[in-house]
């Protein structure tokens, strides 16, 4: 599974993208797993109310399932326009 990070999440975690093997069944599970890997993930995911998630390029909630997903992205609230 490809995991992507944008904006300050990318900066805190220190990379834009990584490939992971995971058995996490939801986005929330994946976040827990990542938090366990290193303090920089803990820093990035410290306040999940400031984090948005897309699974296969569709916005989803934290409890969204990951079954069949090939791309998960984490980023702050969007500021386009």
């Amino acid at each position, binding site marked *: 599974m490809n995991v992507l990070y944008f904006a300050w999440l990318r900066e805190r975690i220190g990379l834009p993208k990584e490939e992971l093997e995971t058995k996490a069944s939801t986005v929330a599970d994946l976040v827990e797993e990542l938090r366990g890997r290193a303090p920089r993930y803990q820093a990035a995911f410290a306040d999940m109310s400031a984090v948005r998630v897309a699974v296969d390029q569709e916005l989803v909630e934290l409890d969204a399932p990951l079954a069949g997903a090939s791309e998960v992205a984490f*980023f702050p609230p969007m500021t386009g326009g």
Partner: protein
Amino acid sequence: MAVCVQVDDFDLSAEMALMTAGRADIGALVSFTGLVREINGGGGMELEHYPGMTEKALQKIEAEARSRWDLQDCRIIHRYGPLEAGAQIVLVLTASKHRQMAFEAAEFIMDFLKSRAPFWKKESGRGWVDARESDEAALARWKAGITKT
């Protein structure tokens, strides 16, 4: 016309000419152009986006606008990359028979672009721009398929 996510600048008159070429059934054209504002002497920003998802999100926004209003045409251009103070960021152009549809559709598209398209602004010397609560609130008025007025 397609949506466009690009580094290059755009020209509104040229886009309008393309949109109206060879037809005379358009009565109203509304454009929105977003510019980089200079804040406290600070200049410029970097616009990051999510390639792939961005195009999908813009196409979805355009399709939704076309389903809600009877538009003759619709065009969305959003830039990314480094942008100087004063630079153009985004163009939304809507065409319809009468003015109200073109106005509403352009406002609708802008409201969604602001907080549902994966772009992030980082201002030079000031860091990442926070999402504005007023932008989230603006979305609420389009809920339930009803138009604004």
